[in-house]
Structure formats: structure tokens, C-alpha cells
């Protein structure tokens, strides 16, 4: 508990991190209270109110089918963060044990798994994601699954690097001498000491996942209309941008920027908190 209090004091003492935390809380509020905050139903089309500029009735204007942009941005927070958090959670839950095992046991099988990960990571992320989602079908869960697959190697690699440096430490030898099994050594002794970089990576990956989801939806390889999703909303506004209708694409894009920024700032704060030497350097 005091760890958490320390961390919050640490964040509040730094303007960048405090800003990130405020943005993060804002998103939590948007997710929890979406029905209260929204002024219109997020998927309610109104052909008579097409492309209205921001006004008292439509705070951030309407898109081409007359949907209220402000309400859609609020509801889209649920969609975007749900996809990203599920994707990163799955990648973490699979990547961490795999990385641990591959780092603990040396041998051809470990080498082979790492080669496969190297290989997955050598593909351009966006290109592979686009191809996989369009083959599996443009569904919200498929986007999450594909992002999870793309992120597994990142977590596995981080944990493996830590496990490799920990496995020959004296305290592991001590645990082995006192009769601990391989499983106990890996999960009880190595894992708690190896988790820090992966935890920082969670925050970074959620930001990456938000950008990738938005990009995929933008080109039509993500979620489909009328689901509110930030990238899809920018794509809806992209045809009108050239005609000077700026509000349709501008606001959802800002939502993406602030959302990704909040997770990046939190990752930075976490990293500096667990490793104060970095900050001074």
C-alpha cells in the first residue's frame, strides 16, 4: 500500500507524469460514465444534421451521417481501451511464462522459439496486422487477438533477458540447494525479480495498441461502422477534410494523441520510479 502511495507522490512531483495521470483518469471517467457524459446515442444517425459544425446542440459537431462526434469519442474510449488492454493482457499472460521458460532452460528448443520470435518481429508490424485481421475478419475480437500475437515476442524477450541474467545468481543456487523444483525457482524466485521491465512495457504496449487499432480501422482492416472507434472516426472525416470540414477528423485524432500520450507518460514515470539512476543520467 505504501508502495502505491510512494508512487503517487512521485508522480505528482513531476509535471509530465502528473499530466499523464490526469489524462488517464479522464479516460477512466469516460469509460465508466459514458452514458451520463454523452449528449447523444453514439450510433444514432440523423441525416438532417449531417456535417454540422461544433455548436450548443453538438459540442464537437456531427459527421456525414449526422452522428454526434462528442458522444462517439466518449463511447469510443471503451472500444479503443478494451481492445488494447485485452490485447496487451493476453500478450503478457502468454509472453511472460514463455520468456521465463526459454530464459531458464538453455537448449535447441529455446533457441528455436527465440528464432521464431525474431522472425515474427522482422515483419513490419502494421503490414502483418493488416493482413491477419483482413483474413480473419474485421471483428473487434480479431483485432485484439492479432495485436496480442504481435506483442507476445516483446514480453517474452524482455522476461528472457532478465531470466538469463538471474539464473546464475547465488540466490537461485541457494534455492536449488534447499530443494526447490525448477517450477518453483522460475515462478517464485526468478519471476518476481524479472517483472519490472515487462510492467513498464505494458503501458508502452497499450499506447502502441491504440495507435495500431486506429490505423487498422482507418484503412478498413479493423472494426466496422457504426461502432465508435477513434481511427474509424478519423477515416469517416478524411474525405471531408480536403473540403475544409475539419471537425470530423480533428477531434477523434486528438483523442488518440492524448490517450497514447497518457500511457507513454505513465510508462516513463514507472521506469524512472523503479530505476532512479536513469533519471539523473
Amino acid at each position, binding site marked *: 500500500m505504501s508502495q502505491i502511495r510512494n508512487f503517487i507522490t512521485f508522480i505528482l512531483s513531476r509535471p509530465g507524469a502528473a499530466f499523464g495521470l490526469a489524462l488517464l483518469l479522464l479516460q477512466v471517467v469516460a469509460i465508466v460514465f459514458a452514458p451520463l457524459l454523452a449528449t447523444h446515442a453514439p450510433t444514432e444517425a440523423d441525416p438532417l444534421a449531417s456535417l454540422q459544425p461544433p455548436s450548443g446542440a453538438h459540442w464537437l459537431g456531427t459527421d456525414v451521417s449526422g452522428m454526434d462526434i462528442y458522444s462517439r469519442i466518449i463511447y469510443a474510449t471503451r472500444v479503443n481501451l478494451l481492445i488494447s488492454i485485452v490485447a496487451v493482457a493476453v500478450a503478457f499472460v502468454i509472453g511472460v511464462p514463455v520468456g521465463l521458460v526459454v530464459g531458464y532452460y538453455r537448449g535447441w528448443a529455446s533457441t528455436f522459439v527465440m528464432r521464431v520470435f525474431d522472425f515474427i518481429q522482422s515483419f*513490419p508490424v502494421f*503490414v502483418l496486422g493488416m493482413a491477419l485481421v483482413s483474413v480473419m475478419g474485421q471483428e473487434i475480437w480479431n483485432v485484439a487477438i492479432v495485436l496480442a500475437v504481435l506483442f507476445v515476442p516483446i514480453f517474452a524477450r524482455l522476461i528472457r533477458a532478465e531470466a538469463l541474467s538471474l539464473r546464475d545468481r547465488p540466490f537461485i543456487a541457494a534455492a536449488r540447494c534447499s530443494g526447490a523444483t525448477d517450477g518453483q525457482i522460475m515462478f517464485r524466485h526468478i519471476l518476481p525479480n524479472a517483472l519490472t521491465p515487462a510492467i513498464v512495457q505494458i503501458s508502452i504496449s497499450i499506447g502502441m495498441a491504440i495507435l495500431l487499432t486506429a490505423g487498422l480501422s482507418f*484503412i478498413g482492416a479493423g472494426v466496422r461502422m457504426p461502432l465508435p472507434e477513434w481511427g474509424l472516426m478519423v477515416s469517416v472525416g478524411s474525405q471531408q477534410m480536403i473540403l475544409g470540414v475539419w471537425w470530423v477528423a480533428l477531434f477523434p485524432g486528438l483523442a488518440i494523441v492524448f490517450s497514447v500520450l497518457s500511457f507513454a507518460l505513465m510508462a516513463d514515470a514507472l521506469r524512472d520510479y523503479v530505476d532512479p539512476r536513469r533519471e539523473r543520467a
Partner: protein
Amino acid sequence: MTFSTTWRRLPRTLRIVLTRLPMVVPQMLGVIFVTFMLVRLLPGDPALLMLGNMATPESIANLREQLGLDGSPWQQFVHYLGGVLQGDLGVSLFTSNPVAVDLMERAPATLELIFYAMILTILIAVAIAVLAVVRPGGIADYISRFYGMAAGAIPDFWVGLLLIFFLFSTLGIAAAPFGRIDPMIAAPPTVTGFYTFDAVIAGDFAALRSAAGRLLLPVLTLTIVNAGALMKMTKTTFAEIWRADFIRHQRASGLSQSRIVRNALRNSLPPIITLIGFLVGFLLGAAVLVETIFSWGGLGQYAVQAVTYSDYPALQGFVLVAAVFILVVYLIVDILYELADPRIQV
């Protein structure tokens, strides 16, 4: 004369290339396997999915044969591999052209875009990073901190749209975001496929102006989004070198500042080369989005079209070409890395 003495007599560059090349073969096979599996991920019969519900049994049987879907999975893979090795990537369902021909036609547009975006990104990233390290607390230092944080959070497609809105729609300075050259101006005769180069070769300055104008916004978009990451990592690398003993020694010996910066940059070159390799991968992914916005007509737009029309042979071909392109870039980067770092023994 034994093998090892012959080997050592070869020039260092050749030795580096010869040790690196064989490693590409299993990677290439892996890429071909992944693109082969891609279409097998389709739920149901790919031939039926591609042709739609109106397809006749004969046309489905034809397409199944053309895609090599009959026979065991192993036979199917061998069929596909054999095709790929002969440059046969199947036929696009949307354009009805061989996918390989479609991709070849469109590749120069994408490469030209990536080429200029790379140059601008490297110039801006390295300049800001060096200035920020050499003068801590100066303007460049502040810009680098703010920009490094913000750049990773900006979606490229959104930046492209904002640039179109401000520079084309509102201020009217930039060229129209429709394609690589003004439709009223004939494209220069193809030599390299890069309109800017071809226009210079043909001495056609109207075409050069138009092509350069059209390049401005998409290149700017890619640069704004990608220079941040490169700048941040260059800054970290360069700052480390800048604190090294040999730099302090050079300063004590009275070398000029510009000379010291040049020496420090030379020593931070290997990690920067690796980063630039990754950058090409990012740029290729970003090009898919940016090309769509600017109707660029390159590989990226072709891929998006393939997604829109469920044109799986085209999509498969694009993924294959993109992955092979990246492998070749990584190969070149590895070779350059070893060349740039004389400490590496071959």
C-alpha cells in the same frame, strides 16, 4: 593452401557479405511459409470466399486449381513455393493482372516516398539530437524533449489529414493531395521509376516541379511522425559517446568543436545504422496509411485496395514483397554495421 588462409586473404567487405548471405535463406523460406499460411487462415474455402456466393462450381474448381488448393498441405506448399521462386504470385482478383506485375508497377512510387522520407527523417533527427547533446539546456534540448515525447503518440494518417487541411485547403500553399504528379503534366519517361529522378534525366522541369510538390506533404507526414523515435534514440547513443574519455581527451587537446562532433558521430554510427534499418520497416507500414490519404498509387494503396475487395492473392503478394524487402534492408544494415565497426572480427 587451406581454406582458412584463402578466407583471410579475401577483402573484409567480401568476408562480411559471404557470412551474412546464407543466413537469409531460412528467413526467406519462413516468409514464404507465413504468406502461404495466411490464406489458409481464412475461415472456410478460400476460393468460395474470394469469388463470392454467386460463383459457379466450375469457377470455384478453377480457382482452387489455380491457387493450388487441391492435394495435401505439403503438396500445396511446394506448389506455392515453386510459383514464388519463378516470380509467380498468383493473379489479382480485382485488377485481373498477375500480382507480381501489379507490385512491380507500383513499387517505385512507394520507394520514392520512403527514400525522401528517410533522408529528411535522418537529417532532422540527427541534427536535433546532436544540437541537444552539445548544448544542454538550449532550444534544441527542449525541442528534443517535447518532440520525442509527442511524436510517438501522433497517428500518421491524422497528421497527413491536418497537413492537407492547413497547407492545401486553408492556405493553398501545397500541391493537391491526389497522386504523384499533376494530371495535366505527362510523367517523365521511365528510367528509375522515381518521377523526380526521371524528370531530371529527361530535363523536364515542369514535371520535376510537379512531382516534388506532390511529394512534399506525404514526405513531411512520414518525417514528422518517424523522426521523433530516431531522434530520441540517436540522442541517447550520442550522449553516451559525448561523455566518453576519448572525447574529453580530444577537447583537452584543443580540437575544434565541429571536429569533435564529427568524431563522436562517427563512433555512434553503428547503433544509428541499426535504428535506420528499423525505420525503413516503420516507414513501409506508415506508407500504407499515408498513400491512402494522398491517393499515391503505390504498394500501400494496392494493399488497402486488396483488403477492401478481399483480394487475397494481392494481399498475400504484398505481404511477401514487404517482408522480403525488410529482410534485404536488415541484411544491408547488418553488413553496414559490421563495416562501420572495425572492431568486429569476421
